[in-house]
């Protein structure tokens, strides 16, 4: 026991107090090794390289006062127990310090040798126990997530078999069905779909818990997403006699989001709204650009259901939360809103319940817009010798027989992106983010500050890059490179910079929409 070495960092600006502590610690049977600093800055320097067993910390230092001293120390040495030293009449401060994670406090002037040593030993021991508990907790979460992921995979196999044979029966491959049999088989099919989406939710939750929920951010068409989501839930609304409407302005800018995740969130919120709205009720979806906050889009899904009491408005987004006593029918897993919140947050937005309307409830969420003006500003503000035009360059990739796997499509798009990246001049060009398109083509765009000649050079280089990569490809893919010149308006140089970026961004945006809308066949 006497050989055990305990490293203590003593941070104390009063030389007398410091001397006393050192004497006390030297009296112990344990082998305390004390490093002493006078200031917080010195302590931080020491902690950057060393990890003592405990810190004995005076909160009032020349370069830091009060709880800030504790916070800074804990930040510099996470997981190292801290015992704070306070003045005689500072119990309140001491209690605050405990709340902020100090392991113990000692009042200067009442400290005796055995008290100091006991306090340090307890602090070290408590810290160790806490760390152990935390580790066990994390292990249990990981274990549970692994189990859930395994379960949801295993559930898929029997589900698959049921689907196969139900569809065999209803398609008449094992003899014709009578109308009643067909109707019953449809009920089975509908329930299968429900089961399947629940399994998907389970998987998403385990991923969210592990921080692995994937989102693939790109310039996403909101109207497309809304249309798809409406089509998915249309049947459920009709079956229940709920009127379903959507109002999305056609000139809404693209969201910088994941298209499939946007659909998932919309389907979930619309599905919920339909579920909790009685027959003849209304469910409406709206989307708009947030006024005054041009970088955000807002979505609102309003229903005429029973509404949500204010006290539940926060909690419904929690994992596994169900409002008790809501309608007697099926409740689902209680994971949908939690997943929505995680997905929206991952895409840079937020989600909440707006309770201001008299009947029903309104779910709102936001998604960011990628600001083209900000993206283009650096290349537009380039002055010396730069061309008086932008070249918008498009690389389009497609597979003549259609893409076989999403993987190859993605790999090729990445390759094109990479090829473009290699042709870019840091101050004159910018590769635009991925753009969601409805068709079978994959697009990559580059905006360059260049004139016609400059654009030709860039296109030649891009083509060269793509040709070089062609030999290694497994899948045959076709590609074409196209350019549009966007000249500056007369006197554009004299405009304020923001106005120039805004106007040019508008034109670029329109060109992008135009380009991605026209099917390939028409252009060749």
């Amino acid at each position: 026991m006497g050989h055990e070495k305990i490293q203590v960092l003593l941070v104390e600006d009063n030389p007398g107090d410091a001397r006393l502590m050192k004497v006390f610690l030297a009296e112990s049977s344990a082998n305390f090794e004390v490093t002493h600093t006078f200031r917080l800055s010195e302590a931080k320097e020491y902690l950057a390289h060393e990890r003592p067993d405990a810190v004995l910390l005076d909160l009032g230092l020349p370069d830091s006062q009060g709880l800030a001293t504790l916070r800074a120390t804990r930040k510099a040495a996470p997981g190292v127990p801290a015992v704070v030293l306070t003045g005689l009449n500072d119990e309140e401060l001491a209690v605050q310090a405990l709340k902020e994670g100090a392991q113990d406090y000692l009042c200067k002037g009442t400290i005796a040798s055995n008290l100091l040593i006991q306090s340090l030993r307890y602090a070290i021991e408590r810290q160790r126990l806490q760390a152990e508990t935390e580790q066990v907790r994390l292990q249990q979460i990981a274990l549970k997530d692994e189990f859930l992921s395994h379960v949801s995979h295993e559930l898929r196999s029997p589900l698959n078999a049921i689907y196969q044979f139900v569809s065999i029966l209803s398609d008449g491959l094992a003899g014709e069905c009578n109308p009643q049999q067909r109707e019953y088989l449809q009920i089975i099919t509908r329930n299968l779909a429900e089961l399947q989406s629940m399994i998907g939710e389970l998987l998403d939750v385990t991923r969210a818990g592990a921080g692995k929920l994937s989102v693939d951010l790109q310039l996403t068409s909101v109207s497309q997403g809304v249309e798809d989501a409406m089509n998915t839930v249309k049947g459920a609304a009709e079956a229940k006699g709920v009127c379903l409407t959507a109002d999305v302005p056609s000139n809404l800018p693209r969201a910088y989001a994941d298209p499939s995740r946007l659909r998932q969130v919309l389907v979930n919120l619309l599905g919920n709204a339909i579920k909790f709205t009685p027959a003849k009720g209304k469910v409406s979806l709206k989307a708009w650009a947030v006024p005054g906050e041009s970088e955000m889009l807002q979505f609102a899904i309003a229903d005429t259901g029973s509404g949500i009491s204010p006290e539940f408005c926060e909690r419904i987004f929690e994992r596994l939360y169900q409002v008790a006593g809501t309608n007697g029918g099926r409740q689902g897993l209680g994971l949908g809103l939690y997943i929505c919140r995680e997905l929206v947050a991952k895409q840079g937005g937020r989600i909440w319940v707006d309770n201001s309307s008299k009947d029903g409830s309104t779910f709102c969420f936001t998604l960011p817009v990628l600001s083209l003006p900000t993206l283009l500003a650096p290349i537009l503000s380039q002055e010396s010798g730069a061309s008086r035009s932008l070249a918008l360059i498009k690389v389009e990739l497609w597979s003549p027989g259609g893409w076989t796997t999403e993987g190859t499509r993605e790999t090729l798009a990445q390759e094109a992106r990479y090829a473009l990246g290699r042709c870019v001049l840091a101050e004159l060009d910018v590769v635009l983010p991925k753009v969601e398109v409805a068709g079978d083509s994959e697009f990559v765009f580059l905006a360059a500050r260049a004139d016609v000649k400059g654009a030709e050079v860039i296109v030649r280089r891009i083509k060269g890059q793509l040709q070089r990569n062609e030999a290694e490809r497994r899948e045959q893919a076709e590609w074409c490179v196209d350019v549009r010149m966007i000249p500056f308006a007369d006197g554009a140089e004299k405009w304020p910079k923001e106005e120039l970026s805004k106007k040019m961004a508008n034109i670029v945006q329109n060109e992008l929409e135009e380009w991605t809308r026209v099917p390939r066949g028409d252009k060749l």
Partner: protein
Amino acid sequence: MSRKRILIVDDDPDVRLGLHVRLKANDYETHFAADGLTAICEARKCQPDLIILDLGLPGGDGYSVMERLQKNPEWACIPIIVLSARDAKTDRERAGKAGARYYMQKPAKNEVLLGAIHRLLGDEVPSNYEH
């Protein structure tokens, strides 16, 4: 005209039977393997026009089956559709790199699966299957 042959590789007998009924109804001849090793033997024996392959298999998983098929130039050109319960992005990408032409998650919709088969075999796609 002889019917086109499809090799179904899945360790779940229900899946094999279900696919058999569905494919037979669409005029394909079916062959079966329940593990990776048998899959290679069957591929040699029946010379399939297309393979539907599960990933989690006893006796060498789906990836090792694709690897071995790819090594032999005679088999490398047989189109493979992966049909698996897994849906991780990593599996999709890995399967694509290993030579799979389509990746589908169980349960795959019949019209999607048949559409892919028709496309890969160059058969006429019935209009109601086109998406």
